[in-house]
């Protein structure tokens, strides 16, 4: 079996339980995409095609919905997703400086992923942790009261061990 075919088979195997779990109601589109993204880290085109077929909706409709929401990603993302908060409280307490520091440390711009697929850097409108601004999330973990120095310490925790 060729490598490509294997990949296709693997994709189907990981996709099927998600589709079965949600059933075929069109309202399941967003939850299905959320689960696909949780499984693969992004939305592979083949998976979106398969899901659209399963829900009996046009592929254009699926992409219309996916691209509307900031949460969905069409390209592979890093193992650690850093979301630097630029909400009001973080803005007035130096959130931009934190973003700059992360960006400099990782050598990537917001929206980009490091070539080794370790880190993805994103800006987010508000994490709802305003009392401890400025903040950022690394995957599901929130870090508070950041400054450029603390950013280095946080990133060190997630650097290659």
């Amino acid at each position, binding site marked *: 079996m060729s490598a490509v075919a294997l990949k296709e088979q693997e994709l189907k195997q990981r996709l099927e339980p998600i589709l079965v779990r949600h059933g075929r109601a069109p309202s399941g589109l967003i939850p299905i995409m959320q689960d696909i993204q949780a499984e693969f880290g992004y939305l592979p085109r083949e998976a979106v095609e398969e899901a659209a077929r399963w829900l009996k909706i046009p592929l254009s409709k699926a992409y219309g919905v996916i691209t*509307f929401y900031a949460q969905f990603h069409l390209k592979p993302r890093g193992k650690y997703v850093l979301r630097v908060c630029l909400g009001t409280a973080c803005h007035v307490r130096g959130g931009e400086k934190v973003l700059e520091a992360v960006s400099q440390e990782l050598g990537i711009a917001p929206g980009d992923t490091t070539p080794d697929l370790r880190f993805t850097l994103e800006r987010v409108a508000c994490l709802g942790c305003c*009392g401890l601004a400025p903040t950022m999330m690394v995957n599901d973990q929130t870090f*508070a*009261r950041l400054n450029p120095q603390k950013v280095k310490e946080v990133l060190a925790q997630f650097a290659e061990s």
Partner: protein
Amino acid sequence: MPALEEFSRRRHELMTRRASAPGLEIYVGMGTCGLAAGAQAVWDAVENELRERGISARLVRTGCIGMCESEPLLDVVRPGEPRITYGGVSAEAVPEIVEKHVLGGHPVEEHLIGQITDPARPYQELPFYSKQRRLVLARTGFIDPRSIEDYLSVGGYGALLKVLTSMSPEQVIAEVTRSGLRGRGGAGFPTGRKWEATRAANGRKKYVVCNGDEGDPGAFMDRSVLEGDPHAVLEGMMIAAYAIGADEGYLYIRAEYPMAVRHVRMAIEQARESGLLGKDILGTGFSLDLHIKEGAGAFVCGEETALLASIQGERGMPRPRPPFPAQSGLWGCPTNINNVETYANVPAIITNGADWFAAVGTERSKGSKVFSLAGKVARTGLVEVPMGLTLRELIFDVGGGIKEGKRFKAVQIGGPSGGCLPESLLDTPIDYDQLTATGAIMGSGGVVVLDEDSCMVDIARFFLNFTQSESCGKCTPCREGTKRMLEILTRISEGKGEPEDLDRLERLARVVKDTSLCGLGQTAPNPVLTTLRYFRDEYLAHVVDKRCPARVCAGLREYRIDPQLCRGCLLCKRSCPSGAISGERRQPHVIDQTLCIRCGACEATCPFGAISH
């Protein structure tokens, strides 16, 4: 009805057990903010100490009690003694607290921040709490949000039992109407009237929906309630469903709030196991099931019609109203949609009665309101104050005034739909209608305090940048108007504005406000209009003097080298990416303003502090 009796018995047992001589208890605040400040390490340290010393105590993980500034928080309750609170606790501080206080009975001075004698009025000696009135937040910080037993033990689900056994749907609606409760999601629509309309609407099926999208930057009220007391929200939804005749419902929660989603999911599971959700609930004939939908990252999905579209799996775009969701909501069925905090108010209204609730507040704004206090205020956190309190009391008494002795400049209330109010309006009471009259709004509860270091043009631009990028693009005024407004504001902040820009901005703002399809566009100009109205001087400084008084707008900065302090070390010259700095070794350097791109790299590298702007 045996199921109902059995449930009531279980609930009473739990209540009696809690009221009767509790043993040793230790609480750790483990909300998102607590964890962000390092609560997990504190928890582990406490667990470790208890195990090593063989102490038997109830270790409770609670939600946020509101003192974000003092996280991580640790509380000790020895039998028969008040609850003692420690703030800013580290894992290293735990052994001493256990040794001296838990075992020895002598509270440790260091880290001690307060005590609770009456859980209904916590920390009365602390100014942060003395003006608060906690109804929605009554249980967060006191119960384990992941345990239905804990919620039941403090009287939880009593309102649901009361409704199911002794009130008709009409009576429930009448009670909520009489209480004067208005929607806490922003617009302040009377909740009872909304329920009545949904009940009156024709439909084979009806839905209840909880709006937990909380997209306003600077707001975290709903997050804290969902994380810290999820059953109260469910109970409110159940009562609403009973009142309007719904048998299915959704909670739409932001995906950026993973802990809130987790806790609500657990709460729904537990309610189902306890027979409070499902078919024929407790044998009363009332049926209801609830589901969670995670928001997918679009601010506009907080708008009710967009939110419903999103639940249906579509793009979250608003549609014109009428028909209102009460007539035609989810899949065309009558749907009642309320905010998290609105639902969380309902159980207490049913339990204590409409008059009790309406006794607090102003003529047309009843009860209390939760605010997230953030920005340049001394004490940030989550507070709940009676309606009618003034903004001054909220910021200076509860919040402790401005950080680091700086001067107050403005308060931003209501997020991107709200406005910036100056010192002269600080005596405005917290009241839906009086706040609207100032050009701001009550909003959902985000309060960000700004000091002299904040630039009002920058703040207006910040919010407009947000609304512009979150505009869904469906209607022209919002899609195009916000973009053009942002261009003008950007121009002004870069020092390229002209005096006529202020009139242009104002005219455009009015058009966008008057003609946009949904609340996003209708309110997006508010931050701009209020800053233009109350802080026109600052705009004029930008366009006439080409000066940013707060020295925030990068485009208007002028970097200078102090020749007295400069040692001619060449570092700044090397760091300058545009070759704007000249000078010989050991001679003072100078910056060519025409070449300077105002990146600040020179200021950051100068070891002698000779460069400033």
